[in-house]
């Protein structure tokens, strides 16, 4: 089975790897504590801290490359130490976390920079950057932890940051509600994750990666299955996968840089990280892998189908995120060499999806915060940089060679066809179908926004391009979207081998040949894109049109919200009300009833105190007679 997992202790320069987390955290603390005093320069501190983290991350990365065992562990202090439970506040810097560190700080820096311009007019910009830094710190802790509790620590931390940023404009009821929804649905997943940690301790007596992964082999397959399913529940919550996908599109209520960084490029991929990190667990059980693959395939289709029916530029991108993460889940579920494929798709996705979101933000910036793609059109003439970068990212996401999406998505599709028997056809075709639909709705989005006739609202006379501070990150991200694919496709896979295992020598047995799959995926992509272009080059209807059941269902998010409302929310509210009634009237009623009974009884009894002398005399006489009678009875032996 697996070789023993061992991490060397960090020394020298790498023993300062905690700075990666500490710097953004300190920056967040300073920004929050100083308050208004930091309003003038706070955003630069925010950008600076993440940029410094990026530079440090690069330095650590090169340091790590020079090491033999490619992984170092660092224990900062004892976190929890009770009985046989030892949880260290410990960090692990290995190829997988290094890749994530670079993604988070790299893409994060660009988005931070962009946000300086985007949030320019917002009075809460300092607070925004504090939350942004807090997010970065939590996300870095998530990927750097060396045990599952640290991972959970960062996991909940990013949940908090995500909540704060979704509800950043908290005076909007929709934003506040969306934030709450995100937090709650995440908590459902978190509860699963937490139970998985309990199970690890109960079974193996430890929550450290090394101990758990080394001990997986000694666990019964049922335990592994349950553990994996619980982790998967956590992952689906964080990553917006079925059945916990409904919060992610609502999260678009937050400012656009938030959507780009948290709800597209980094945080939502934490679920993929969790599964990739726990690959010894997931690889140990076939049923488990099938479940992960099913979740991925189902979600990628759900996301793609709903993406076709949305008219809000950010919601289309949100559902596309759901769908793309579905591909990543598909990848990590397939196991073996596909773990690495999922990770490179994740990295590429980080570039092009961040580019798409920031592009969308740029469009909104120039269009008075309009988000309805039916109200755009012909914008390519007015915002050339945005158009060009958005276009490249669009080509990248639909997988046109030689852009990055092609190099990362197509191998996952191919890997799906390499499963055994009919499941290869099922999941392979699902992935292929997803690619076609992706091409369709992304083309629809692109064409409706930048081409075709103008359909602007009256208040917009002359849309303007965004300032350089916003376009510069766009350009850099576009470069990433174009180049990342072929740069990463082999090098990153090799780099990740120490963590995810060496699968280069394994023979692929696809049900159809690899070449055919490549051709097929390009063909369906072009077909989907062509269909999208043909249908929407002339614009679209301005009002929502009556539609058949499938489109209506897609517009309503496939009734997931309605389901949640009918099954959890409504009965929950009813249950709460019923319980409040029960508590006040039932349990407290019992208590008060007892008090009332005592009180009522005594007020009856005191009626005997009439104030009439003769009734007192009568009772005295009765008493005396009773005493005499009792005395006589005893004396005469009547009772004996």
């Amino acid at each position, binding site marked *: 089975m697996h070789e023993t997992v061992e991490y060397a202790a960090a020394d020298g320069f790498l023993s300062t790897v905690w700075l990666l987390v500490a710097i953004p955290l300190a920056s967040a603390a300073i920004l929050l504590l100083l308050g208004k005093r930091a309003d003038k320069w706070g955003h630069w501190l925010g950008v600076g801290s993440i940029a410094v983290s990026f530079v440090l991350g690069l330095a650590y990365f090169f340091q790590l490359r020079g090491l033999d065992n490619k992984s170092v562990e660092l224990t900062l202090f004892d976190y929890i130490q009770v009985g046989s439970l030892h949880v260290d506040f410990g960090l692990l810097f290995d190829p997988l976390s290094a890749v994530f560190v670079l993604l988070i700080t790299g893409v994060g820096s660009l988005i931070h920079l962009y946000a300086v311009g985007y949030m320019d007019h917002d009075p809460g910009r300092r607070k925004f950057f504090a939350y942004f830094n807090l997010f970065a710190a939590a996300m870095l802790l998530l990927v750097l932890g060396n045990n599952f509790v640290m991972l959970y620590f960062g996991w909940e931390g990013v949940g908090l940051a995500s909540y704060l940023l979704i509800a950043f404009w908290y005076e909007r009821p929709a934003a506040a509600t969306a934030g709450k929804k995100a937090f709650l649905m995440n908590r459902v997943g978190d509860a699963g994750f937490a139970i998985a940690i309990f199970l690890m301790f109960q079974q193996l007596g430890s929550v450290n990666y090394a101990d758990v992964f080394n001990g997986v082999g000694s666990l019964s397959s049922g335990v592994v299955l349950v553990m994996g399913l619980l982790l998967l529940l956590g992952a689906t919550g964080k990553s917006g996968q079925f059945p916990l996908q409904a919060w992610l599109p609502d999260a678009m209520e937050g400012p656009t840089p938030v959507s780009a960084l948290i709800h597209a490029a980094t945080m939502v991929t934490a679920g993929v990280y969790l599964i990739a990190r726990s690959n010894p667990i997931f690889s140990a059980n076939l049923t488990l892998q099938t479940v992960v693959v099913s979740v991925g395939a189902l979600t990628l289709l759900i996301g793609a189908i709903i993406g076709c029916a949305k008219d809000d530029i950010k919601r289309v991108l949100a559902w596309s995120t759901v769908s793309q993460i579905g591909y990543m889940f598909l990848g990590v579920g397939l196991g073996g060499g596909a773990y690495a494929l999922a990770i490179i798709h994740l990295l590429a996705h980080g570039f092009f999806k961040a580019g798409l979101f920031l592009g969308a933000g740029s469009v909104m910036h120039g269009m008075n915060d309009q988000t309805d793609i039916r109200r755009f059109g012909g914008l390519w003439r007015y915002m050339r940089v945005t158009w060009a970068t958005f276009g490249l990212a669009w080509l990248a996401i639909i997988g046109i060679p030689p852009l990055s999406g092609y190099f990362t998505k197509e191998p996952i599709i191919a890997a799906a066809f390499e499963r055994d028997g009919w499941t290869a056809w099922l999941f392979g075709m699902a992935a292929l179908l997803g690619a076609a639909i992706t091409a369709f709705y992304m083309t629809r989005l692109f064409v409706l926004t930048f081409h075709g006739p103008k359909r602007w609202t009256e208040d917009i006379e002359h849309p303007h391009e965004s300032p350089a501070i916003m376009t510069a990150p766009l350009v850099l991200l576009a470069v990433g979207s174009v180049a990342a694919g072929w740069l990463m496709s082999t090098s990153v896979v090799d780099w990740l081998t120490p963590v995810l295992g060496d699968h280069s020598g394994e023979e692929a047995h696809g049900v159809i040949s690899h070449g055919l799959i490549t051709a097929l995926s390009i063909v369906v992509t072009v077909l989907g894109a062509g269909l999208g272009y043909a249908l929407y080059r002339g614009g679209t209807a301005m009002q929502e049109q009556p539609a058949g059941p499938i489109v209506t269902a897609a517009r309503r998010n496939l009734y997931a919200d309605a389901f949640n409302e009918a099954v959890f929310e409504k009965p929950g509210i009813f249950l709460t009300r019923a319980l409040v009634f029960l508590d006040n009237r039932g349990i407290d009623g019992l208590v008060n009833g007892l008090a009332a009974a005592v009180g009522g009884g005594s007020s009856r009894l*005191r*009626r005997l*105190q*009439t*104030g*009439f*002398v*003769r009734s007192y*005399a*009568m009772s005295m*006489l009765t008493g005396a007679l009773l005493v005499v009678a009792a005395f006589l009875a005893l004396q005469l032996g009547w009772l004996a």
Partner: protein
Amino acid sequence: MNATNPEWYLILAAVLFTIGAVGVLIRRNAIVLFMCIELMLNAANLALVTFSRINGNLDGQIMAFFVMVVAAAEVVVGLAIIMSIFRTRRSASVDEANLLKY
């Protein structure tokens, strides 16, 4: 003729006591009530003296003296109360003086 049977005295005492008790129960005038109580006390005295005679010692008679002393003291206090009630209320009916209740 031999001495009268002491039981007759006891029966007389019982009758007197009963008259007194019924009086206390059914009359409303405080003075009458008071006299009925005196009647009961004296019935008890009669019984005590009779027992003394039957038993041939002085215990009962001593008790009777105690009762008389206590009764006298009681009359002093009781009549004073009745007087002050009568002064304030112009009536000696005990039913009207029923303020000491719940």
